[in-house]
């Protein structure tokens, strides 16, 4: 009986339940200095002067300004499409470009005096006009980087619209949709600490998703030999994509530790995090979808403007991913994507749970419903008419993606059945007939998404200990995803060991040779697979030793995975269990042959699903209440359904949050208005219902486990389901469009507009 597919409780839970999580802020670091960043309160300004004397007098230590930091500015990610000249000094030297840009660094003996001293740094600015919206920035009247000559930092897709795209379409529907800017809000704000050891090596502890990538970034930026730096990511309290690269803060912490010769630590406050930790989403789409009157979709144009924020991050690249997934689950023959990313005087934008794919799905799913309304066809029916059929996989879409495996019809059937689609429509009709001012709305979203999007290679190493237990070293980095359990299950199954005897080691560049961290829903399919293959290699190595010990031919040795014992095929005795084998091998010095590493690479996989949302809309106040969300999510084979469901729950909550609550807002002057958890509408349990998840597994042919990724699916599927449900509720009122988030005011405004 394989352990795979079982709801195994998590091995990592005990320390978290007892309050013994090793988050960076919890580290004991003797004699560490505290870092406090002084940040710009203006969105765009020249720095005229900085007076640090009062602050330095209070701390007794140097206060660092841009002139003091001898580290070159940070370049944008080295992705060819991104304008490389839009660099970011670690500490602003002459210009600040967003509220939150670092202008000085205070170092103090304790955190409280750091906060006191930071207030004493006196800044004089010459304000510059600020461009707060992409539309303003695109005018190129106020340039963030005058030497570059434009605010456009990246382009995607076709250079211009093809006017003949919609030839042959009886019906074309158009809309402009915005995927509003969000803040990632991991519950653990960022922390960093660094110390130079007596041997001259620097150790950095980071709250990050990508310890090895950070190691690379830091040693390059600081001019260190890779061997001079060790990066440790201990327990990390959530990442969600926004902790997937180092920023100036972490770099400065490491730089200071080396410069001052004392350990240095930093933890951001939440209000600091809200403006300094990069944001997500912030795409605007101009959309047109065309087809025949009997429901066949023929052509789709997505024109994307990505708000990149003040300094281009990976966010600038996302329109390419959005374009790649733009046609979703449909066999639309003609797709055109046009896109540009533009800098604005706001917090930089990066990857955030879904990273480009929620935006793609929010648009295509809304447009399909608009199209359905236009031709008077049920939205489920239009979807069925256009799904890529299940026998068409692997399927190359007109947008250029190669989808591996799926069955969209089955997912739709499951979802509509689970939600009781027909009964809900009957209830909706009943309320309308009675003139009830509380409308029921039912919304569907059928989605696919790309996991392991850039086909990465992940490292896995398995080693047998003297006791006959196993250690898995993984380059993946779980920060909530449960790899200590899932990867242990994968290796345990191959080795025939109980899960309790397999320990997963991660997050230390000294202990794990290489890695790509965890994001993009890739870890099980490449990290889990790397561990699997390494485990298989260890089994092969073990067989060689067993053959020697049992004086048999290695080809005749088998591993009984159920019992974890090796024996000669056909002869269950004599047998060597792992513990016996390991202690014998340790005795003759061959234990280290029971170790293998593997780097596993595979192309992207495409999980998919259907979400159905049921909302109640109070048409008098505009208030939307989500009653139910049914989620069918197919991520191929599920290693641990308990953990997979947890990922869906959390993903769905974030998707619903964008649909109904969260929006990071700047006022017209570029001042953040939602810079705390009071202003920013991050929902609690009281604002959300329970979720109804339905399991479905269509394995991928692209790896032996048949696994795809699931971490972002919930987010991608949920937002458009809720959005469509709200529009469904409002259809009798002539409303075709409601801005996200569908809060009371936005719904009320849409109703007002439809009346006029």
């Amino acid at each position, binding site marked *: 009986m394989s352990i795979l597919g079982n709801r195994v*409780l*998590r091995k*990592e*839970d*005990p*320390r*978290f*339940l*007892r*309050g*013994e*999580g090793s*988050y960076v*802020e*919890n580290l*004991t670091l003797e004699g560490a200095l505290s870092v406090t960043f002084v940040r710009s309160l203006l969105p765009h300004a020249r720095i005229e002067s900085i007076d640090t004397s009062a602050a330095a007098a209070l701390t007794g230590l140097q206060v660092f300004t841009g002139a003091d930091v001898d580290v070159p500015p940070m370049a944008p990610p080295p992705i060819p499409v991104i304008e490389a000249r839009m660099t970011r000094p670690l500490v602003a030297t002459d210009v600040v470009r967003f509220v939150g840009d670092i202008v000085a660094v205070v170092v103090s003996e304790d955190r*409280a005096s750091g906060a006191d001293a930071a207030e004493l740094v006196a800044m004089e600015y010459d304000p510059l006009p600020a461009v707060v919206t992409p539309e303003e920035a695109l005018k190129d009247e106020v340039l963030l980087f005058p030497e570059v000559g434009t605010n456009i930092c990246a382009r995607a897709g076709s250079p211009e619209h093809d006017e003949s795209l919609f030839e042959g379409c009886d019906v074309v529907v158009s809309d402009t949709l915005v995927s509003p800017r969000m803040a990632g*809000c*991991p*519950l*653990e*704000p960022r922390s960093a600490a660094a110390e130079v050891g007596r041997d001259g090596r620097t150790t950095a502890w980071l709250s990050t998703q990508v310890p090895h990538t950070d190691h690379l970034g830091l040693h390059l930026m600081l001019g260190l030999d890779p061997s001079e730096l060790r990066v440790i990511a201990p*327990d*990390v*309290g*959530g990442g*969600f994509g926004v902790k997937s690269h180092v920023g100036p803060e972490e770099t400065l912490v490491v730089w200071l530790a080396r410069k001052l010769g004392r350990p240095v630590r930093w933890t951001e*406050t*939440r*209000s600091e995090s809200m403006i300094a930790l990069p944001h997500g989403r912030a795409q605007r789409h101009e959309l047109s979808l065309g087809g025949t009157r009997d429901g066949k979709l023929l052509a789709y144009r997505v024109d994307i403007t990505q708000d990149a924020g003040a300094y281009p991050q990976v966010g600038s690249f996302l329109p390419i991913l959005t374009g790649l997934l733009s046609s979703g689950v449909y066999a639309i023959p003609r797709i055109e994507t046009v896109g540009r990313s533009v800098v604005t005087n706001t917090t930089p934008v990066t990857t955030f749970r879904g990273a480009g794919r929620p935006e793609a799905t929010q648009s295509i799913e809304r447009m399909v419903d608009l199209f359905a309304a236009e031709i008077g066809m049920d939205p489920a029916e239009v979807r069925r008419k256009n799904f890529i059929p299940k026998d068409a996989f692997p399927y190359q879409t007109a947008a250029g993606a190669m989808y591996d495996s799926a069955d969209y019809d089955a997912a739709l059937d499951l979802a509509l059945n689970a939600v009781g689609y027909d009964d809900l429509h009957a209830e909706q009709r009943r309320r309308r007939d009675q003139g009830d001012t509380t409308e029921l709305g039912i919304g569907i979203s059928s989605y696919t998404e790309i996991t392991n999007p850039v086909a990465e290679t992940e490292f896995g190493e398995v080693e047998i200990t003297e006791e006959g237990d196993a250690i898995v070293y993984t380059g993946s980095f779980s*920060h*909530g*995803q*449960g790899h200590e359990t899932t990867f242990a299950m994968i290796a345990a199954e191959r080795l025939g060991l109980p899960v309790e005897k397999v320990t997963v080691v991660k997050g230390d560049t000294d202990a794990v040779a290489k890695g790509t961290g965890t994001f993009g829903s890739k870890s099980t399919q490449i990290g889990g697979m790397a561990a699997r293959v390494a485990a298989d290699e260890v089994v092969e190595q073990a067989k060689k030793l067993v053959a020697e010990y049992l004086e048999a031919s290695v080809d005749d040795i088998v591993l009984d995975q159920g019992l974890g014992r090796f024996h000669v095929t056909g002869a269950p005795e004599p047998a060597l269990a792992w513990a016996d084998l390991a202690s014998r091998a340790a005795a003759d010095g061959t234990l280290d042959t029971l170790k293998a590493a593997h780097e596993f690479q595979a192309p992207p996989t495409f999980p998919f699903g259907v979400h159905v949302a049921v909302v109640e809309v109070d048409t008098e106040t505009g208030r939307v209440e989500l009653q139910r969300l049914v989620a069918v999510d197919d991520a191929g084979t599920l290693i641990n359904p*308990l*953990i997979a*469901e*947890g990922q*869906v*729950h*959390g*993903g*769905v*909550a*974030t998707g619903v949050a964008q649909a109904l609550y969260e929006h990071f807002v700047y006022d017209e002057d570029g001042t953040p208005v939602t810079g*705390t*958890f*009071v202003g920013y509408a*991050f929902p*609690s*349990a*009281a*604002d*959300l219902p*329970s*979720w109804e998840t339905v399991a479905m597994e269509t394995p991928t042919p692209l790896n032996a486990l048949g696994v795809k990724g699931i971490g972002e699916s*919930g987010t991608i599927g949920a937002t458009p389901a809720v959005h469509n449900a709200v529009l469904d509720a409002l259809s009798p009122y002539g409303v075709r469009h409601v801005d996200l988030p569908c809060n009371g005011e936005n719904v009320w405004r849409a109703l007002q507009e439809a009346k006029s």
Partner: protein
Amino acid sequence: MKIAITVNGTRHEADVEPRTLLAYFLREQLGLKGTSVGCDTSSCGACTVLLDGESVKSCTVFAVQADGCDVTTIEGLAHGDELHPVQQAFHEQHALQCGYCTPGFVMAAVSLLKEKPRPSEEEIRRGLEGNLCRCTGYHNIVKAVQAASKAGS
């Protein structure tokens, strides 16, 4: 200022600046780091502890206000190897992922169940409105509180 606070059954005497928040006192002076500070607007509840038996946000209480009081933190719940029923329920229902918000939720749930031993789902959700989580979507947290409630009866 000199204060004495009983934390998890042990009396601690200390000299603190008045501006020292209870959360930081617990973390930095007593080394009890299970209580985290996740925000600065008393919104997220990661800092929740029991003060004289009731859940409070320790980031919104000065240590000097807790002088002479009884505090229970997450570290004070388990009895050696035996987890508190709420902790056990969180484990069995997979009600935690990154774990950062977990101590706050557990303490809030302990307090909630003390005041309402058999809460409905609605009462649980409202009872946890002072705690935020980004990982779990709350679904399994609610199930854990329901399970702990049944176990307690």
